């Protein structure tokens, strides 16, 4: 913290209508409108309340284990032969991913609002586990909607949620994936408007969710900025993060937005390859539309029907992206590239072998693009990779893809 921090020029977004340029907004059924407007008011009050912020900071420190370390990945750096690579170790948080940062913020808000029942959606199960965790901690009943396909491929996380006292409801409607889990959570919310709080896990959904989730995840970027300044005496040249809905990435990017010298690089899941159509790269392979309460880039056909995403990583397997990423993409402040299933699998193994860290398949996508980024930035440069989660949950999936039995 030796250097002064710059004020953030991008603080004007979103506007009063919840828009990041043309993206974001409030596209929900009338029954939910009064609820999201109420949530907007409640969040604005909580955000401005020092007591709320102090309570959150206390739990982040003593329960989540923040700050998470910034670690110099020496062997990976040598291996790639380019810029110095640092990992921001969000996988060391309680529950093993960045998701808990947001869940802790929202559960404190839900309590403040007097809500007595929590619902959540989950893809890989990391957000579901984090939601179940904070609900157990505060003694609130928790229902987690999870696509039936994901229930099958993320069994350990389903059991973890059960252990934490949450009810996991497999969703078979639609195509049984994350988007359908989100539809089902919305249906629950619209049916139980009095007592229920919908704890959305990514920086998407109707306003104020994108800004609220971003704010709660911004602790990642705020810490990283200070830690890099301390370690290197300068800002990084680039930060790299994977993107599904994009909550970890926006949490990393946002505190760096005003630092124009810092390249912000998001890595989408290219699945079997973008030309195959079997991918989850909404920015690289989609176009703007409206889904789940906000306007953003979506995978959709010519008729505006949403197309199923595909990724080896359940956490990136979503046909949309947070609206602030859509905005940063269009204005060119952040750049968005992609990595395929196979590239992520290779990066997963490389990271485990060189650094003794088994990454989740989600950040493995970001790791897969490090060789080019490190080369472009060059030997004198500094790159921070956001290690958003640990890979224990993915071990069975990886074994299966490598043709091994465990």
């Amino acid at each position, binding site marked *: 913290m030796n250097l002064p921090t710059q004020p953030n020029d991008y603080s004007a977004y979103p506007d009063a*209508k919840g828009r990041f340029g043309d993206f974001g*907004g*409030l*596209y*929900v*059924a*009338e*029954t*939910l*409108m*009064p*609820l999201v407007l109420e949530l907007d008011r409640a969040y604005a009050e909580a955000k401005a309340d020092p007591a709320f912020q102090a309570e959150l900071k206390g739990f982040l420190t003593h329960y989540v284990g923040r700050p998470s370390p910034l670690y110099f990945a020496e062997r990976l750096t040598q291996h790639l032969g380019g810029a110095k690579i640092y990992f921001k170790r969000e996988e060391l948080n309680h529950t093993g991913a960045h998701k808990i940062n947001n869940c802790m913020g929202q559960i404190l808000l839900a309590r403040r609002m007097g809500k007595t029942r929590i619902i959540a959606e989950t893809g890989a199960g990391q957000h579901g586990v984090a939601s179940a965790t904070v609900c157990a901690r505060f003694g609130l009943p928790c229902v987690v909607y999870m696509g039936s396909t994901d229930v099958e491929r993320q069994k350990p996380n389903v059991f973890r949620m059960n252990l934490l006292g949450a009810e996991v409801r497999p969703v078979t*409607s*639609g195509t049984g994936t994350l*988007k*359908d889990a989100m*539809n089902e959570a*919305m*249906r629950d919310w*619209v*049916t*139980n*408007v009095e007592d229920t709080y919908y704890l959305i896990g990514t920086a998407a959904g109707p306003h104020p969710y994108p800004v609220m989730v971003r704010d709660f995840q911004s602790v990642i970027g705020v810490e990283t900025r200070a830690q890099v300044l301390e370690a290197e005496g300068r800002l990084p040249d680039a930060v790299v993060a994977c993107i599904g809905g994009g909550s970890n990435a926006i949490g990393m990017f946002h505190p760096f937005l005003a630092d124009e010298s810092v390249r912000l690089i998001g890595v989408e899941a290219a699945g079997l390859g973008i030309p195959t159509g079997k991918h989850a790269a909404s920015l690289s392979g989609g176009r703007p*539309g*409206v*889904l*789940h*309460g906000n306007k953003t880039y*979506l995978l*959709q056909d*010519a*008729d*505006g*029907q*949403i197309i199923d995403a595909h990724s080896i990583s359940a956490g990136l397997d979503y046909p949309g992206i947070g609206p602030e990423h859509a905005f940063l993409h269009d204005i060119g402040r952040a750049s968005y590239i992609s990595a395929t299933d196979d590239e992520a699998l290779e990066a997963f193994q490389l990271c485990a072998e060189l650094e003794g860290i088994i990454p989740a398949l989600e950040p493995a996508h970001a790791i897969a693009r490090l060789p080019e980024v490190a080369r472009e930035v060059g030997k004198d440069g500094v790159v921070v990779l956001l290690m958003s989660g640990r890979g224990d949950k993915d071990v069975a999936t990886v074994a299966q893809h490598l043709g091994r039995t465990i």
Partner: protein
Amino acid sequence: MTVQRIDARFAALKAEGRAAFVAYVMAGDPDADTAFEILKGLPAAGADIIELGFPFSDPMAEGPPIQRAALRALRAGMTLKGTLALVRRFREHDQLTPIILMGYLNPILSAGFEAFAGDAAQAGVDGLIVVDCPPEEADPLADALDAAGVALIRLAAPTTDDRRLPAVVRRTSGFVYYVSVAGVTGVKEADAAAVAPAVQRVRKASGLPVAVGFGIRTPERAAAVARVADAVVVGSALVDEIAAGLESHESVTPRVLETAARLAKAVRAASAEQTSVQA
């Protein structure tokens, strides 16, 4: 025609002293030709107004019956364009029954608001209900529909309080759709006693007829709601007949039309009672 067709229908029903029976079916369910046969038969079965759903892959406000109807329609290749083609065919047979399209914003956004509004008016669509487009986001769509003379029909809900209601009914024409239960379509049951004051409130704020839907499946409940509202909407009970017909390999069209006729009869009888009580 367009919005005038809705106004004319409500004026005629008011003269008769009864509520409208609004039948909801999904375009392309279970396929385009069968859906057309159903559509063509609905006025004779007693439907005063037809709500025609256009399918969307992610229908967030629908319960299982209409979710499944949308999936059947999408599998059969139905699109927003195909929905308008269906309306065009219907108009070759019927010039009087108002048709209201109901669905979600993304297919319309994808088509372009102005192009859609023009095509819809030309096809013979009279009004549009978009579940996930609240007044806060509706101005660009409302501009396009106004220019084409198509009514934008708003939803009001049990959670819509008096402070919010004026914003909800602003720029609405034709009628207002009151969502009778906090929930998805076709699951919870509407309580006519609870609905009555809400209908009064919405009628007063909008100066328009109020249709009630979302929790009405049986002739009995349809009759109860018909006594307190200007129109009664039934959807899930009709599309369930399609699902049941497909399952038992029966012809679905008569099943849907017979159920519609029972509901229409109940609505007419109920309103007649109401008129005689008032007289």
